[in-house]
């Protein structure tokens, strides 16, 4: 009858009440919330947020499928730069994961370097997208040209907006990292960034495959 998860359920020391202090005054640090999930609350919150974003993009891509099946769908060649961008984003996902491994081993210098590299990759992806949109416009393909281009701009823009949020988070964590804030014992902020960044990567791959199959 009682759903209890003894033992593993306790929020571990680094994660608990210190950063997301539950209750301005009191603080949860000294108490055990006996039923906490075996995952840090902040990470759990991030996953919920990711769930909401998935719903958002499911709605957009369902609309895409519906509209695509109606016809009057102009096919156009995607500029090659979008393939290049995809590669850059995958690379950034790799480097950020590596940087996280380095942090775990307390290799501070290579952690910072790889994290910086990931941030730069992220920014290059964004710039690459801007260039790609520019090339499309030069080809005469605007947002209102055809449903296919409308959806293309809509999906890539929506992804870019979420990516800008990710880059802001990366820069924020990068600054703290450069100030020597993180260590293998204190890495929650980095972990959140890494998770979100991988999600953005996977999301892009999904959208990109989706677009390539239909455009």
């Amino acid at each position, binding site marked *: 009858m009682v759903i209890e998860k003894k033992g593993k359920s306790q929020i571990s020391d680094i994660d608990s009440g210190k950063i997301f*202090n539950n209750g301005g005054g009191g603080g949860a640090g*000294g108490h055990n919330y006996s039923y906490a999930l075996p995952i840090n609350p902040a990470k759990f*919150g991030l996953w919920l*947020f990711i769930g909401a974003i998935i719903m958002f993009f499911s709605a957009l891509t369902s609309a895409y499928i519906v509209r695509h099946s109606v016809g009057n769908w102009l096919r156009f060649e995607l500029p090659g730069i979008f393939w290049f961008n995809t590669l850059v984003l995958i690379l950034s996902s790799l480097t950020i994961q590596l940087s996280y491994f380095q942090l775990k081993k307390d290799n501070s210098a290579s952690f910072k370097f790889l994290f910086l590299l990931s941030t730069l990759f992220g920014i290059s992806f964004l710039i690459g997208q801007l260039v790609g949109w520019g090339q499309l416009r030069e080809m005469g393909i605007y947002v209102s040209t055809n449903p296919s281009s409308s959806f293309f701009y809509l999906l890539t823009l929506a992804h870019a907006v979420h990516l800008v949020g990710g880059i802001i988070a990366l820069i924020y964590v990068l600054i703290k990292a450069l100030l020597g804030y993180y260590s293998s014992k204190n890495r929650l902020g980095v972990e959140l960034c890494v998770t979100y960044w991988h999600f953005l990567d996977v999301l892009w791959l999904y959208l990109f495959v989706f677009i390539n199959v239909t455009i």
Partner: protein
Amino acid sequence: MSVEHAAVEVHHKESFLTKYIFSTDHKTIARQYLITGIIWGVIGMILSWFMRLQLAYPNQPMPFLEKILGRWAEGGILKPEFYVALITMHGTIMVFFLLTAGLSGTFSNYLIPLQIGARDMAFPVLNMLSYWVFFAASVVMLISFFVQTGPAGAGWTMYPPLSAIKSAIPGADVGATLWLISMGLFIVSSLLGALNYITTTLNYRTKGMSMWRLPITVWGMFVTAILGLLSFPVLLAGAVMLIFDREFGTSFFVPGGLVVGGQPVPHEGGNPILWQHLFWFLGHPEVYIVLLPAVSLVGEILATNARKPLFAYKVSVGALIGIGALSMIVWGHHMYVSGMNPILGEVFVITTLAISFPTAILIFNYLVTIWRGNLRLTPGMLFALGFLGLFIPGALTGAFLATAPVDIQLHDTYFVVAHFHFTMATAAAFGMFAGVYHWFPKMFGRMMNDKLGKIHFWGTFIGVYLIFFPMFFQGIAGVPRRYYSFTEYNFTSQFVGLNKFITIAAFVAGATQLIFLFNFFWSMFKGPKADKNPWKANTLEWQTDSPPPHGNWGPELPVVYRGPYEYSVPGAEEDYIPQTVPIKVEAK
């Protein structure tokens, strides 16, 4: 992210600004939501009065209207385009700003941490942001009343192409843009709230507070938050696409070949039905986002004031979850007449009728809970009973609407208006009133006046019936909703007398709300001081001070030993045993 160390002392100094304005305390945020919600409720009600005046006295000049509304009522006669704007804003404000943000924002924020024994939400800063983003959404919505072309005017459902083509009606111009921006902010705010409610419920329950010991209120808010998290993003997606159609010339929702004001519309190939799917994918869960907090507040209040355990607690929780899950797959019942495949329509008929089962089970459990109970008719209890008296007829009419062949006749008539005002609008408002009366002592540390509360209840309950029950008959007779005036045809003009009657009832019921407002604000400062547990209730929030201190509990968190509904336990000294009382005491 500042590193705060767990401090033993509970109070710390706060400035006025951090205590009352930019507070991260869930209790303050709840009160901010409540007050903002009440303001929106008053605005929404006043808008409905203008609509009722027009329906009762069509084409009759009422010079005072021009004084209030200016160019919207030149010569004292309401303009048709302003009438549709009124409908739109009334619906939007009541559904989203009062009964979603006002209701969930107040009670999820207030009750979740207190009833699970936490000190605050999981992410207090996000929680504060949630309120302030909602505030920004409110400001934008309010501004839309004052722009040249007036507020949005395509209905709270914002169906394109009307909402997608700026020149279609004045209300599709800047007003609609502001509506979309405001709703975008609103969705962000509700997501921030939902993140908090879910994470807090799952992670910050105190020792002994297993899921099956949660008060039904927490379950209700929890399911609501999940619904919001999954369905609001879909509306956001639709809203973004609509913004694209309006601003960047895309044709997601606008079909080709439209002519507006003699001008052909450049869009082509869009599909307005797509918007209906995206809208109702949120829209139907949304009505349960409104209902579930109310219904769970009511359950808690019924059990407390009947001095009986909530009947079949686990089944009721299961029903709440069942309603939540099913509500995600019934949206098509709003679209039977949209030309959808009849077989698909039939699927939606089945899922919609299926949702009546958990709903009926829940209500049945509530009725058994009060059956032969020792009822204490506090104003909160009266409103909880009133909830049942409104929800049951409303939900019964839902079964008719759910049946596609019947709905083809009833769709977009006053029957639907009556249906959703019973189930959603007034029932949820009654749930909210019940919650306010019941938890006011905890929130503000003072009691509300009992007599005024009862007068408020009877005036409102009778008023609501007089207003909305006749609309069932109007709807069956075929009177369409969202019409500016009903003078042209016999089958509608026969109801002019009835419309006058409804309008008078609306004004009387509206005036009754002044009693509530007076009672609320007067008691806040002048009411008699409340003690810890004025209702002799079991749940945790009643075991701490009224109002609870910052951090909610003293240095130690409460420990829970039992379920929330041990009322009138045979052999116990008193007719209630708070959740914090250890089991051993009982054993002797």
